[in-house]
């Protein structure tokens, strides 16, 4: 059994939650090295990759639009295509949608205001490597902090995602902080190995911060990474 599965956290210029993500993953039992955006390989033994929150490349043009062209993103895309686990948090979610690794797009919040607060969430599916420690229908409280979190998909795409069970996380009733379609807070790709969400699980892993619900999501990822590493050895 692998003691500490390796889950690198990518650092883009303007990332600011990279260290929190790495700290949370380390506390949950992973080895979480920081990987620079100009690197063109992932560390040996990588079992999962996390794209952290922040404001990569100053959010110029569109959030995530420039970061997707970083050298490391070619590797991340290849890793994801091969079934590797990839988690995008906030800006990381934006980068994954811009890169075409996740469906939909993230637009400015309907309120035009930056939102920074704890939000109630509901787990729609526990049948993913990112939510296995949760139960379907389980309420979570995890903070958001973003200006561009209004997830959008047209009706056809939204219907397909709902039908395929790719909607993993929704904001609680009446608590949508950004106007996203269908109150959607997080989605996966069709193979369920890539997941993006606007809330910040890495900021909800210690009782001192008000909630430990984020540890359910990141802990699920660590579990899955450990299994995938064990399968390779």
């Amino acid at each position, binding site marked *: 059994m692998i003691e500490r599965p390796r889950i690198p956290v990518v650092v883009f210029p303007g990332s600011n939650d990279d260290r929190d993500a790495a700290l949370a993953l380390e506390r949950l039992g992973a080895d979480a090295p920081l990987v620079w955006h100009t690197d063109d390989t992932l560390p040996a033994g990588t079992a999962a990759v996390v794209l952290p929150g922040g404001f990569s490349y100053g959010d110029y043009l569109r959030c995530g*639009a420039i970061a997707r062209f970083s050298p490391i993103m070619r590797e991340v895309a290849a890793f994801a295509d091969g079934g590797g686990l990839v988690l995008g948090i906030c800006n990381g979610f934006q980068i994954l949608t811009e890169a075409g690794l996740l469906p939909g797009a993230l637009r400015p*919040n309907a309120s035009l205001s930056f939102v920074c607060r704890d939000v109630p969430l509901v787990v729609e599916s526990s049948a993913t490597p990112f939510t296995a420690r949760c139960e379907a229908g389980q309420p979570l409280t995890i903070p958001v902090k973003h200006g561009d979190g209004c997830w959008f998909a047209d009706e056809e795409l939204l219907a397909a995602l709902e039908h395929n069970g790719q909607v993993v996380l929704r904001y609680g009733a009446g608590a949508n902080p950004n106007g996203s379609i269908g109150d959607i807070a997080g989605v996966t790709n069709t193979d369920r190995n890539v997941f993006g969400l606007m809330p910040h699980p890495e900021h909800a892993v210690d009782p001192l911060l008000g909630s430990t619900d984020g540890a359910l999501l990141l802990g699920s990822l660590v579990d899955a990474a450990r299994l995938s590493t064990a399968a390779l050895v």
Partner: protein
Amino acid sequence: MRATVLVRPKPGILDPQGQAVESSLRHLGFEVADARVGRLVDVELATDDRDEATAQLERMCEQLLTNPLIESYEIAFGGGA
């Protein structure tokens, strides 16, 4: 040659910036039914061939300048500052 790319939020896409602008214009007393906010990119291209420039600009729009899911674009020549 110089070209201008106009990027617009597609019809039906929520445009909170446009709504804020529309509301402010009304406050100023203008009778405005709608306002949408997009983006303008002036590009100086190495080529002077208009067809080649158009082809390049279309690729730029597809790869970087727009997100086709939510934005449309229009290419114009000869304008700009």
